[in-house]
Every structure is written in C-alpha cells, then in structure tokens.
C-alpha cells in the first residue's frame, strides 16, 4: 500500500478573461490531473476570478537561477533603443 501523503504540488495559472494572458495565482495539492483541475476551479475561481485554468506540476517548472541574475538580466539595461520612448519625433506628428 502507498504511504499516506497530501498529494502532488501543482501551480495554478488563471486567465481572467478570454484573450488575456494567464497569471500565476497560487498552488494546491492533488493526486491526479482531474482532481487538480476541479480543485483549482473550486479553490481559485470562487469569486469569478477566471475563465481559463492552466496547471503545471511544481516539479516541472524550470526557473532561472539566482546566481545567473546579473549575467541574465543586466545586459538588457542599456538597450534602451528597444523602447519607443527612445526616439525623437517632430512635434505634432501623429499615428506613429
């Protein structure tokens, strides 16, 4: 017999409305996919917070390493030409 436990940890992502991106809202425990899905519905949409659910087993999430932080993210700091506000436009020009 399997040892008593509280099930697998799942991460829950909700889509607030069709067309919107999914956002992480929390976690839950469940033993299988179906149970995880109904539990997510029952736990995270009680106040109409979402119309779409994604579930990922927590252990399957690939996360960036903290030690890489500077090498990963700092190099984009000086690439300000990627932002529209970098560019000079004549006064009064529209639709650009």
């Amino acid at each position: 017999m399997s040892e008593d436990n509280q099930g697998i940890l799942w991460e829950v992502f909700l889509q607030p409305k069709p067309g919107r991106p999914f956002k992480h809202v929390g976690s839950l425990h469940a033993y299988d996919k179906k149970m995880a899905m109904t539990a997510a519905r029952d736990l995270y949409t009680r106040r109409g917070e979402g119309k779409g659910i994604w579930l990922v087993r927590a252990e399957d999430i690939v996360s960036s390493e903290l030690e890489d932080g500077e090498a990963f993210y700092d190099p984009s700091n000086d690439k300000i030409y990627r932002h529209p506000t970098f560019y000079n436009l004549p006064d009064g020009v529209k639709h650009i």
Partner: protein
Amino acid sequence: MEDQKKLAEFQEKIDADIKIEPRDWMPEKYRQNLIRQISQHAHSEIIGMQPEKNWLTRAPSIRAKKILMAKIQDEAGHGLYLYCAAETLGVKREQVLNLLHEGKAKYSSVFNYPTISWADMGAIGWLVDGAAIVNQVSLQGTSYGPYSRAMVKICMEESFHQRQGYEIVVTLAKGTPEQKQMAQDALNRWWWPSVMMFGPHDAESAHSNQSLKWKIKRESNDELRQRFIDKTIHQGEILGLTFPDPDLKWNESTGHYDYGEIDWDEFWNVVKGNGPGNKQRLKHHIEAHENGKWVREAAIAYADKLNSKTKTA
C-alpha cells in the same frame, strides 16, 4: 566569512524593501522563523473553522447559513494558501500537519474558546477577524514574497468576514431584549481573548525583535493591538454595547484609548494547552485526518495506476 557577506547583502535587500523569494539565499534562522510563523498562521485558519462550524447547522436563516458556510470555506482556503507558502520554504504539508497533531505546533489560542451562542458568530467575525485583519494588513508588507502574496489574497477575501460578523451583532443589538443580551454576553466573553490575539507585550515577546529586523513582521504586537482597540471601541459604542474593561478610556494626549491590564496568566494557560477547547479542537482535526486516510491512499493508488497506464501505452 562567505556567510557574513551574504548576511549583509540579505539585510541590505530587506532594508531596501526587496522581497525575498524561495530560491534566494536566506539565513537559516529566517527560514525557520518564517516556517514557524506561516504554519502557525495556517493552523489558526484551519482550527478556526471549528468554532464557527459549531453553529453552521444551527444558523437561523438561509442567508446566515449561506454566508457562514462561505466564510468557513474561505478559512479553509486561507489555510491552504498559507500551507503552500510554507511549502516554498521546504516543509511539506504532511510534515506541518504532523507537528500540529503531535502538539508541537501552535495556533491562535482564541480558537480554543467555545462558541456557546449564535451571537458568538457575530463576535468572532467582528472581533476575532477584526483583530486578525489588523495583523494581516500589516503582514502584506512582510519581506518574504510568497507569504506577502498570500496575505494580499487573504486580505482581499477577508474583507467581507468582519462585516458579516458585525452585521450579526448589529441585528442582535437592535433585536429583542434577549437578543441584545446575547450580543452583550458575546462581547464580554470575546473581547479579552481578541485583545490577547496580538500576543505578549513587546518587552516580553520572544521572537519580536529579530522578526521586525528581518521584516517578517512589520509592526510590534502592542502597536497592532492599539490599532485594533482604537478602531473597535466606536463600533461597539454606537450599538449601545459595553466593553468589559472599566479602564478603557480615550486619552486626549496620546490620541489613543488606554486599556486595562491583560490577564496574562489566562493567556499563557490557554497557550500551554489548558484552554477550554484545546484538546477538543485537536482531537477533531486528528480524527478527520485519520478518517480520511483510506481516501488519500486510494487517490494515490489510482494516480499510480493512471501513470503506469500512460507509461505502457
């Protein structure tokens, strides 16, 4: 040496109000302190379902029953969010539950008091949740990311709880003389336990200083307690109810209410397990857990079958 440097960097982040995330380096004491506080908080939500559940089957109107049921359900949800937050620190839910069942983990002592009348549903919502909210609003600013996010969600959901309780007290206070007496009696019994929910005075609080320095807690016990008292007195007085503290009076010079001596013997007695409901609450939780064992085992076995099916397919 390495640790000293890390510790200094850690404190710099805390001081700059940068949240600590699960994969970040953190001092072991910070982790332990958080595990203790978050799981204690989670247990309080879960054990806190019981005193209210005690009146769910006797709620006197359909409306009251719906609201109370949804409220107790929210508490289960809040416990769940918090267990998950604790889990990000490396403790599994079953470990945390075991500690509770073995009597090694604490929960808020206030839930060891019995709910003996319907008015207690009002008093719990108004006073106990009212006190909890003061604490939780403050904890939204806690330094640990997952704890802070759980608090934000909890505060959003809790906003109806205190109103629900206060509404019950209002209805009773404006009802028949017997109902008003019921409300006064509940206030008499729940006031001091609610005031004690903030824990010992700052000078006697074992974990306070370090917790404040690491911003696990953002404000001291006494600061939070004072805020709760200041905002609550008026709510009781407009209903014509009397607080069971003869020393309670507005202090013009401090801009706060002065209040009487807290009975710390009573407080420690209940914390140490001698409250009227300590054994009963724990027994209820352990029984439910044991009665559910076969269901959890079956769910595990079924999941194993599903997995082996997909593997052979």
